[in-house]
């Protein structure tokens, strides 16, 4: 019982700065240092959020935002891993992608938004494509580096135990690269969330980003703040979920045994 208590205590202490921030927000808003319009109180934002949850309004928006995020992210994950592996393995693929990746990786991908709207329209597909395009680079880079740098002696060991060149990729190279590939995915996921919100804000329409922009236009600041709180909660949950999946998948990895 003692241990359980101290565990909760530690968890509370770790997130206590959030509590401090929330109290400061509420207190600051109630003291009316600035107008309600500029900074509505946290409680009024939470009440608004709760109302939107009850009415289902925010859930449709949030659902749509999440759907776009995950659709784009999944495409980036699959494409990124395939491209990364083939770059590391085939000279022709490397010749093609190496310069593209070096230019594309640091590029602010959002610059392509007008083009993507032209190509894919203003609805879901342009946003999903934008997410996929932005999130694919960290996955490519991580997979490329990981699969290329698998320990030579591990490959030799497998070979001498009877592993053929065809089996090498699936049986040795991919499992050995898993931790680094997963790190690439963990970088790509928040990128996906950022890009989807930016796209929704610029293009408007359904989705959390669009709703927040509409609220702003109607001078509905609790609506804007409730959007921020909602995406903060959902974003941290999604990232946390990835961490849990990582721990499950990589039980063998050193980090899990510390």
């Amino acid at each position, binding site marked *: 019982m003692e241990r359980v208590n101290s565990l909760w205590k530690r968890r509370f202490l770790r997130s206590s700065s959030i509590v401090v921030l929330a109290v400061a927000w509420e207190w600051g808003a109630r003291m009316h240092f600035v107008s309600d319009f500029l900074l509505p109180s946290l409680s009024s934002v939470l009440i608004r959020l709760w109302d939107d949850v009850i009415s289902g309004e925010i859930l449709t928006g949030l659902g749509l935002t999440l759907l776009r995020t995950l659709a784009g992210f999944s495409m980036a994950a699959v494409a990124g891993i395939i491209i990364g592996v083939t770059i590391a393995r085939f000279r022709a693929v490397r010749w093609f992608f190496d310069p593209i990746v070096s230019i594309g990786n640091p590029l602010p991908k959002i610059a392509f938004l007008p083009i993507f709207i032209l190509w894919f329209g203003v609805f879901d597909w342009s946003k999903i494509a934008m997410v996929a395009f932005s999130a694919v680079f960290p996955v490519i880079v991580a997979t490329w580096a990981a699969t290329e740098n698998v320990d030579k002696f591990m490959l030799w060991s497998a070979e001498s*135990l009877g592993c053929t060149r065809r089996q090498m990729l699936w049986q040795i190279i991919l499992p050995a690269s898993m931790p680094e590939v997963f790190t690439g995915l963990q970088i790509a996921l928040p990128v996906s969330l950022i890009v989807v919100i930016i796209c929704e804000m610029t293009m408007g329409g359904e989705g959390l980003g669009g709703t927040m922009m509409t609220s702003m236009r109607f001078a509905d600041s609790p609506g804007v703040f409730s959007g921020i709180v909602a995406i903060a909660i959902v974003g941290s949950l999604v990232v946390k979920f990835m961490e849990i999946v990582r721990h499950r998948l990589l039980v063998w990895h050193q980090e899990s045994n510390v």
Partner: protein
Amino acid sequence: MNETIFGAGSMTGNGIVFGQVTHTYRPQRGRPVLALDGVSLEVKEREFVALLGPSGCGKSTLLYLLGGFMPIESGTITVGGKAVTAPGPDRGIVFQNYSLFPWKTVKQNVLYGLEKQRKPKAEREQRAQELIELVHLKGFEDSYPSQLSGGMKQRVAIARTLAIDPVTLLMDEPFGALDAQTRTLMHEELLAIMRRTPKTCVFVTHDVREAVYLADRVAVMTSRPGRIKEIVDTKPSNGISRADYINTPEFTEKVDYLWNLVRDEAIRAQEAH
């Protein structure tokens, strides 16, 4: 030329023959370096030969060539009369840094080579269990390598290699990363294993005592380019056990003699840098 002299079924049996092996190391930048220069050596079946030399003398390279991991540019290497062209399960290898598959448990690591041999499942399981017990890792079957100490990891690597029952065992400074106490225990364990499952063994090391303690013969290599400088017989002469051997004047003399040979080369290697 060795084809005719040491053809299949020759007097060397499953022994190993290095014939005039020369190897040039070509770094991506910088000029090529002659690593091995005409190395000839014969290892008889079930003989334990240590390759001893200063670091950078090409002893590991010679072992990798024997393993088939790198192309042989000049000269020949035959095992049991057959020329080495690629890695194969007839030559099991143990590396210094264990090179275990970290995503597999101890048992899955040991099973890997057996699965490649397509033996029936029950037989594989039994053999893996036997080997895990042979290297004293019973109870750790389901542990991951990251949960084991260095000595235990190397025992897993040895079990994984022995599982496929290779004719020859290649060891690349296998105990170099271990602390002195663990290393001594591993020496005893390796000798015990070799008594139970005798194999031809080529053992690369720069530790003179280790070489004399374990090997039947020690081949001393020169510093770069690596050549065989001298081959010294290190078998205890009166048939005493290895554990007793270590306390005899004979052992000390051999260590002393070999140390002087290696010392000259180590000094030369340092001066060359």
